[in-house]
C-alpha cells in the first residue's frame, strides 16, 4: 500500500474522486459547493470583527468571551467550525498564534491559512525565537512588552484582536476594517493608520 501512496498527488486526487463518486459517497457538485464556501472565507471577515470591537465596547467584551458567537453576530457562518477564541493585544501584552503540530488556523474568519503559517520555519521558530521571527515582518516589540505565543494544538482556533492604532479617531468601521490585515490577526504584524 505504501508504494501506491507514492503516486503523484494530482493523479491520486482524480482517482480517489472518481472512486468516491462511483460509490455515491462524494459528488462533484458537493466538492464544488464546499470549495465555494471555503473560498468565500477571507481575512476581511476577521477585519470586520476587529473594527467593530474597536468601536463598540459591548461587542469587544462579547468577542473576547466567545469569538464564534461574535462572528455569527456579523453573519459569518460558524456552523460545524471549531470554537473560536480571541486574544486581545494591549500596551503590555502582544499575542502570536502558531500551530507547531500541524496548521490549525481560524479559517472561519480568516480563510485558508497562508503559506508561511504552514511552513516548518514558522512552526519551529514561533515558540522558541518569537521575537526573531517577528523581525522577519519588521515587527519589533518593546523589550518590556510581554509576548505570549499561543500554540494552537487542540480544539480551539485563535485570532488576535490587535490594538487600535493612533490616528484613527473618528474613522468609520469600514475604514477601520480596511487597515486590518491577515497577519495582524495572527500577531506577526501590527496595524497602522
Amino acid at each position: 500500500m505504501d508504494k501506491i501512496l507514492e503516486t503523484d498527488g494530482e493523479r491520486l486526487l482524480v482517482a480517489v474522486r472518481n472512486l468516491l463518486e462511483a460509490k455515491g459517497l462524494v459528488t462533484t457538485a458537493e466538492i464544488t459547493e464546499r470549495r465555494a464556501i471555503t473560498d468565500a472565507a477571507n481575512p476581511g471577515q476577521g477585519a470586520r470583527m476587529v473594527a467593530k470591537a474597536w468601536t463598540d465596547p459591548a461587542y469587544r467584551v462579547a468577542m473576547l468571551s466567545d469569538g464564534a458567537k461574535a462572528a455569527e453576530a456579523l453573519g459569518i457562518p460558524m456552523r460545524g467550525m471549531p470554537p473560536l477564541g480571541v486574544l486581545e493585544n494591549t500596551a503590555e501584552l502582544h499575542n502570536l498564534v502558531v500551530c507547531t503540530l500541524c496548521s490549525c488556523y481560524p479559517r472561519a474568519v480568516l480563510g485558508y491559512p497562508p503559506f508561511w503559517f504552514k511552513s516548518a520555519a514558522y512552526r519551529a521558530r514561533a515558540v522558541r525565537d518569537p521575537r526573531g521571527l517577528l523581525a522577519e515582518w519588521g515587527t519589533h516589540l518593546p523589550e518590556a512588552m510581554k509576548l505570549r505565543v499561543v500554540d494552537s494544538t487542540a480544539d480551539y482556533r485563535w485570532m488576535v484582536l490587535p490594538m487600535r492604532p493612533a490616528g484613527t479617531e473618528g474613522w468609520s468601521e469600514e475604514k477601520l476594517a480596511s487597515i486590518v490585515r491577515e497577519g495582524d490577526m495572527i500577531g506577526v504584524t501590527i496595524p497602522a493608520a
Partner: protein
Amino acid sequence: MLAPGSQVLVKNDWPETRGPCHIRTPHYLRGHRGVVVRQFGAFPNPEDLAFARPAARVPLYHVAFSRQDIWPEGSDRDELLVEIYEHWLEPVGAAS
C-alpha cells in the same frame, strides 16, 4: 478538575516510542511545569479519534509556560499558552 492558577506538570511520557499514535501534546512541553489559566470544557480524545476508535471526552485546559524555562536563550518576558488535555497533566503539590 484543575482550578485556574494550579501548578501542573506535563507528563514526561513518549508514546511515540511504543508504537503508532497521534499525540496533541507538543514534545517540547513534556516534563515541564506550567500554570492552568482556564478550562475549556471537555472534548473527544484525539488520540482515539485519530484511529476512529470510540473517544471519551476529556477536559481541556489552557496552560501557561515560561518560554525561557524550556529554551534559555532570548527574552524572559515570553510566555507560551497551550491547550493540553487533562490526562497529560499532573497536579504539582504545594510541598514540592
